């Protein structure tokens, strides 16, 4: 954004969206300009982190001078372009297109796309524009029911083949664990050899779940439907110093699921790693240490105050220094520490204990 703002004025030009004149720049898409104007164009296959694919066809708009409808996510604006995002033609297009999607989708008793814990955007679209009622097509798509990975579940019945997951895995993560496979109505999301994700290059980052617009990919161990009273709490991941933001979904005082804040909102831009997204069991684990403990003479651990605990540790360390010298000691800090914490750790090592034996576990 900030980069675009520095463009010289003469690179700005005017386009018209639904009869309203607005400013646009070279290289912008219809979708981007419309969004800035508050004109909403529905879309399923688009994720601003990815190259536009224009594949879901939901965002088709009319562009003056073009015989065919064009995908707003990919169509570049040019000076004087006139764009229409609502018309009878577009309305009919959406109605029939949604009807086709629904004919190829798992539906609930009300005939709407089934919703999982991750909102089904197709359902929202169908609620807004009633789809043409069509008989089911029963596409022969293969899933991976045998996939025993602990975190990611794929339901081909909810997949619309927008390929956001495969493109994410390729374009953002450069992991390429999943792919479109077969073709036509048999097209599905697959792995090499249809192996479970644990036997592929997959890093289980779960970004595919995050980008999936219909909930065909969901977290295996989170509730499949979150109760209505679930609360969302923004937090910072404490697994490493990057400081990715998390949204903790809290049910009855317990973390039930972790997601990334929306794309563009925080520094991690919708991305997380396997730890941030899935390794939250420790939060409520019975073995988790929740207060300082000191091993007393009886050999057992006893609760203590921080002051006491720090004093015992400091005494012990100073004793080692006195008996064996500074270089008998070594300090290793955790990859979970921030830069500032690491700085303090080396300061402790060098100035308090006078040794350069300082290391950080992420440095190897």
């Amino acid at each position, binding site marked *: 954004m900030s980069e675009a703002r520095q463009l010289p004025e003469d690179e700005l030009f005017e386009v018209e969206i639904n009869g309203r004149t607005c400013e646009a720049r070279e290289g912008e898409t219809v979708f981007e300009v419309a969004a800035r104007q508050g004109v909403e164009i529905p879309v399923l296959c688009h994720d601003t982190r990815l190259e536009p694919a224009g594949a879901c066809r939901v965002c088709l708009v009319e562009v003056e001078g073009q015989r065919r409808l064009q995908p707003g996510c990919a169509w570049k604006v040019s000076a004087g372009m006139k764009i229409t995002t609502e018309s009878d033609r577009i309305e009919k297009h959406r109605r029939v297109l949604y009807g*086709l999607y629904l004919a190829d989708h798992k539906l609930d008793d009300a005939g709407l796309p089934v919703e999982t814990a991750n909102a089904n955007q197709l359902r929202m679209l169908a609620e807004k524009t009633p789809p043409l009622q069509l008989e089911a097509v029963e596409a022969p798509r293969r899933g991976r029911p045998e996939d025993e990975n602990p975190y990611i579940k794929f339901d081909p019945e909810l997949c619309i083949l927008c390929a956001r997951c495969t493109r994410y895995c390729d374009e953002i993560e450069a992991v390429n664990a999943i792919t479109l496979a077969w073709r036509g109505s048999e097209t599905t999301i697959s792995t090499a050899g249809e192996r479970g994700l644990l036997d592929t290059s997959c890093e289980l980052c779960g970004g595919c779940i995050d980008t999936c617009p219909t909930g065909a990919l969901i977290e295996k161990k989170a509730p499949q439907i979150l109760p209505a009273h679930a609360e969302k709490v923004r937090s910072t991941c404490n697994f490493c110093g990057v400081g990715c933001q998390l949204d903790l979904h809290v049910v009855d005082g317990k973390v039930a699921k972790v997601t990334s804040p929306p794309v563009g909102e925080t520094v991690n831009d919708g991305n997380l790693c396997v730890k941030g997204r899935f390794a939250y069991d420790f939060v409520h684990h019975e073995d988790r240490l929740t207060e300082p403990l000191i091993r007393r003479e009886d050999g057992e651990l006893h609760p203590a105050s921080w002051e006491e605990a720090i004093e015992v540790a400091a005494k012990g360390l100073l004793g080692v220094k006195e008996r064996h010298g500074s270089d008998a000691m070594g300090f290793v800090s955790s990859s979970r520490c921030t830069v500032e914490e690491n700085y303090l750790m080396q300061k402790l090592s060098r100035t308090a204990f006078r040794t350069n034996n300082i290391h950080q576990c992420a440095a190897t």
Partner: protein
Amino acid sequence: MLETTAQRERVLKLLEEEGGVTEESVRRVAREANVPEAEVWGAGLFYTLINNPGDRVRVCDGLSCQMAGADALTERLESQGKTCERVSCLGQCDLAPATLDEQMKLVTYEGRPTGVTPDDPELPMNLGGEMDRSYAGLARAREMGAEAVIDELEASGLQGRGGAGFPAHFKWRSLRSQAETERYIVCNADEGEPGTFKDREVLLRQPHLMLEGLAIAAWTVEAKDIYIYIRGEFGNERRNLDRAMEEAREQLSCFNWHVVDGHGAYICGEETALLESLEGKRGMPRLKPPFPTEQGFRGKPTLMQNVETLACIPAILSRGGAWFKGLGRNEPGTKLYCISGHVKTPGVYELPLGVTLDELVEAAGGYEGTPMAFSPGGASSGFLPMDQRELPLDFKSLAGAGSMLGSAGVVVLNDTVDMAVASAWQLVFFERESCGQCAPCRIGTRYLRRQLDRYVQIGDPASLAQADDVGWEMEEGSICGLGMVAAKPLEAARKYFPEAFETRNSNGSSKRG
């Protein structure tokens, strides 16, 4: 960077050498080409010649083969203990019903005579004449200079023969005007439109004309590398092409020639899908713009032409654009018309662009039985009733009639055919060949095929109540030409033969009316 690109381009060929996609072959190819395993897997599974290893007989289920009894033939072969797979049009409609045996060799069963226009030196392509190895057009091009070549092409009015009828000279000019100097020439020899087998005849009878056309194109737009993407099922044609290239080694020596086999996907005839396939990927069409003339193969300016388009070019340069133009009726030049189905001598006939169906069928020995309908330009063109037999078979007239000349794969259907069943055969083709990338086509082709099957089985027109809306959306919403026309056969059949879609009593096998 360049190295990884080049490696990816080897993936499909390597898979073919491995005998097809298996978990192990994919692992080896991924390692060899340094491409992620999943991508090799996904690309390989797109193509029917490599996605399911194993020996079997491939029985064509194109319209002409179906009319010639491909179903019965399949049953017969299976009762002899053979494993059969039904496959999309093999481009042997004149020899219907056609099969490829376990070794991918063409086997046909009808001893019917097939035809080709007899030797006539006045014809630009003259398929019935001696093989033209003169390369006189290339020599002439070098004398004239590049700009003059394109002027001559413009004067000839030559329209692309691959289906779209786009004037060739526009693309050549566009290539020359690109700032990028790394440019490619691609020959589209992936002929797969049901009813079409004209490029096959050029490859078999006049391959040098096509090679010469390519050399002229490369010289004119200053490209070094020439790619020929040839349909994987074309074994004889491929061998003949290799032979011709060997014969003309000297004339072709200024350029780098690459012959690339297709691996079983009709959609790779679409130009951008073909480029994806050349790059070793799944053959899914790209969004346009950018057009291949701007960003094509490897993202560089690329000139792609059909085999027949290229084969016209030597004569245009040797004898002049005006001469070529004058050979046509309303539109320029001669055209290779494929004709099959219910005619006496199916084959490929070079006739003035714009002849009528009757003139074409006269060349093909006359109708067999009482003609009822014809499909003028492959499955994509739908059907027309016989009362339109006077229409000139050219790009404009057929487009005006809501159909298209396309690849000029003309099929005649006589009154023994059930038009609902004939439409179903065409829909099977589109469902199987859809790349699956966009929903209108992926879901629409399957929806229509299933609803039509249902109608044919139970005879209730209600099955097709939504067919018009779905067809409308397929045309409006699909990414590429396949989805845009896939509803045409059903649409046209219902329009012109409504009696074939009325309520039927029970088992549906009753003929129309």
